[in-house]
């Protein structure tokens, strides 16, 4: 069944073409069928491929399907090929599975829209690009997918293109992503220079023996890759586009800006784990940025009133956790959290969409409240996902977040762990705040709006996602007994021989007559899973989560006057509510100088320099012509005079 691999991305591409070109002609119902059908077909094909992969002979862990040679220039030979291994299969399942659910939901959510077909054309195209991203067998394929998802993200954020804020948000997302993409492309070129190939299998296999451990080359490559990841995955310092991206329709936020695209950076780091392990400095920075973002974005989330923005900051924060896991070398934990996050965050976003749908487009939580009795299904699925993200046992988020915290303490240091735990507390707090402000408390909805439960097509999707959010943890439990399903699946991808790498690097350095540092301690065997520590940590993080929820309960149900008091007395609240003024700082330091610099370039360099040169040449020629015009007076006798003078001139020259 592995030969069907190439079909997986084809379905959404064909679906996108049909929806885009014939969408208006065939009508909304058929568009919905084509769009959802194509992604569901991809999902089913993925299942078939999964079956084929499970039957691979012993010892083989990668299946590569090369369609054709895409670019052949000198010693650069790039194939259009797909790679199926544990990592890409996990990603494929998430993208096509969650993608199918969100497509179905979107049919209900977007049905009133005139541009229904346009939405689904982009949505399918996005799935296509995302599948290419996770299936490609070389860096350039990944880059194509990487750019493709960025492009579709831009289209869909600006879906309501008659709204200025949506257009601006789309542009912002695109430009900020551009910064990261540029770094990513540089990294790919550098990799080609060092390895002579950009195939994943080649690069990962030879990483240990081609580059020197901790050398500048590998540090630069991994840093560039990581900058690319920060752009796509909305990490400090490039996270500012994601909250603004909430201008798009809610299913877009759920699929692109929560479940799949923004996790592409995590996928890429895990895919390149062999490179990252070779650069401990980068790993440390990855962990620091991840942990910092987890904490930083979470604090902003506590003071937002727009329901989707809270979730957006929550997404930024959760992806921070994934990078924290990558940074301490716990790649499995990162992917585990990626998967569970896809489930519960998609459910949360779709739940918020259901709420927004129910109260006719209102997004401000202060104008909600008491919606529990109007939309019970939305409420219960929302609560389950909230408990999952907050880390309540035995829901999925508990296990994945706990694994990250465990590894950040064991393989990292206490600072990373502290960041993670603080982030977990704040996460529990703001998510409970969100639930309380939306579903409990005083009914604040506009009297003209009559809240109602969403149609079944939407609530059914919510229920499926809530179930997944609840049981998704099964992929990774029970960790202490070693029967970790994901770990098993990802093991071949994460196989890296550090000993060989260190041997080789020491050898190379000695040959160059340089001193090789003592890396021996890195090889010391880590102690096996300390079950007692882990159980203690689990208990501790559960207490932290409960404390967060309890705090929210105290603040927003028991003593609703507290938040107001804090708002009035503490200057810090304004700071947080205004997102630490990061947007303003970026505007002042990057956007404004760029715009003004461009103005200067336009006025000075372009208008004066380039236009001036062109017009100047024309002017000079015109001036000469003006001088020559004098000779052509129109008087015949003048011309006769020139003839005579010419004759005399030649006579003089002749004699």
């Amino acid at each position, binding site marked *: 069944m592995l030969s069907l691999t190439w079909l997986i991305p084809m379905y959404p591409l064909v679906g996108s073409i049909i929806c885009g070109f014939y969408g208006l002609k065939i009508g909304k119902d058929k568009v919905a069928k084509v769009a959802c059908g194509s992604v569901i077909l991809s999902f089913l094909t993925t299942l078939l491929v999964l079956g084929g992969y499970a039957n691979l002979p012993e010892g083989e862990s990668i299946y590569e399907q090369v369609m054709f040679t895409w670019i052949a220039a000198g010693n650069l030979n790039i194939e259009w090929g797909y790679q199926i291994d544990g990592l890409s299969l996990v990603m494929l399942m998430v993208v096509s599975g969650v993608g199918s659910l969100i497509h179905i939901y979107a049919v209900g959510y977007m049905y009133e829209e005139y541009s229904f077909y346009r939405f689904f054309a982009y949505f399918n195209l996005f799935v296509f690009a995302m599948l290419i991203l996770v299936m490609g067998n070389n860096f350039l394929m990944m880059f194509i997918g990487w750019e493709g998802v960025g492009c579709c993200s831009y289209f869909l954020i600006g879906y309501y293109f008659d709204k200025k804020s949506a257009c601006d948000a789309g542009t912002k997302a695109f430009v900020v992503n551009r910064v990261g993409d540029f770094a990513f492309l540089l990294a790919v070129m550098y990799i080609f220079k060092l390895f002579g190939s950009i195939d994943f299998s080649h690069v990962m296999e030879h990483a240990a023996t081609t580059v020197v451990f901790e050398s500048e080359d590998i540090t630069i490559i991994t840093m560039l890759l990581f900058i690319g990841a920060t752009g796509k995955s909305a990490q400090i310092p490039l996270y500012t586009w994601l909250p603004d991206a909430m201008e798009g329709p809610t299913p877009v936020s759920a699929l692109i800006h929560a479940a799949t695209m923004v996790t592409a950076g995590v996928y890429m780091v895990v895919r390149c784990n062999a490179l990252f392990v070779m650069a401990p400095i980068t790993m440390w920075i990855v962990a620091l940025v991840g942990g910092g973002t987890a904490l930083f974005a979470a604090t902003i989330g506590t003071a937002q009133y727009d329901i989707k923005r809270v979730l957006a900051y929550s997404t930024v924060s959760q992806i921070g956790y994934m990078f924290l896991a990558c940074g301490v070398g716990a790649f499995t934990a990162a992917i585990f959290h990626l998967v569970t996050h896809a489930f519960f965050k998609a459910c949360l976003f779709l739940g918020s969409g259901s709420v927004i749908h129910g109260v006719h487009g209102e997004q401000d939580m202060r104008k909600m409240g008491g919606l529990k009795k109007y939309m019970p299904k939305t409420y219960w699925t929302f609560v389950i996902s909230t408990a999952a993200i907050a880390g309540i046992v035995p829901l999925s988020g508990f296990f994945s977040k706990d694994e990250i915290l465990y590894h950040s303490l064991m393989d990292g240091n206490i600072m990373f762990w502290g960041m993670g735990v603080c982030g977990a507390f704040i996460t529990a707090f703001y998510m409970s705040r969100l639930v309380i402000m939306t579903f409990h408390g005083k009914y604040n909805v506009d009297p003209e709006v009559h809240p109602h439960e969403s149609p079944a097509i939407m609530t059914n999707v919510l229920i499926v996602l809530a179930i997944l959010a609840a049981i998704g943890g099964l992929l990774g439990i029970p960790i202490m007994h070693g029967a970790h399903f994901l770990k098993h699946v990802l093991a071949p991808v994460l196989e890296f021989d550090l000993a060989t790498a260190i041997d080789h690097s020491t050898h190379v350095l000695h040959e160059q007559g340089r001193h090789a540092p003592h890396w021996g301690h890195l090889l010391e065997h880590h102690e096996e899973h300390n079950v007692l520590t882990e159980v203690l940590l689990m208990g501790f993080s559960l207490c932290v989560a409960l404390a967060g929820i309890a705090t929210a309960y105290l603040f927003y149900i028991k003593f609703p006057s507290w938040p107001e008091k804090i708002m009035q007395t503490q200057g810090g609240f304004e700071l947080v509510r205004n997102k630490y003024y990061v947007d303003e700082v970026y505007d002042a330091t990057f956007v404004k100088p760029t715009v003004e610099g461009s103005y200067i370039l336009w006025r000075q360099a372009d208008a004066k320099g380039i236009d001036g040169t062109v017009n100047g040449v024309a002017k000079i020629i015109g001036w000469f012509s003006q001088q020559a015009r004098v000779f*052509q*007076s*129109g*008087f*015949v*006798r003048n*011309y*006769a*005079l020139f003839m*005579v003078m010419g004759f005399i001139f030649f006579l003089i020259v002749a004699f």
Partner: protein
Amino acid sequence: MAPLSHYLVLSGILFTIGVMGVLVRRNAIVVFMSIEIMLNAVNISLIAFDRYLGQHDGQIFSFMVMAVAAAEVSVGLAIVIAMFRNKPTINLDEFNLMKW
């Protein structure tokens, strides 16, 4: 018999008078007459060389020049009349159409 150089000097003087007439006079008719003087100056030199070399080509050619001059005068006077009808003057300074 006067030597060849006398004839040629006379021819040169007449030709120069003609050229100066064309260049400096404003009256179209006078310019015409100056052109005739130039043509006849050439005729003189043609006849002088004809006699000097003892051939008859020069005489034949001078007849040719006279014929062409007669034709030219008829066309030229017609143009002058057309100019006068167009603009009631034949002052050449009033006519500067020969430019872009």
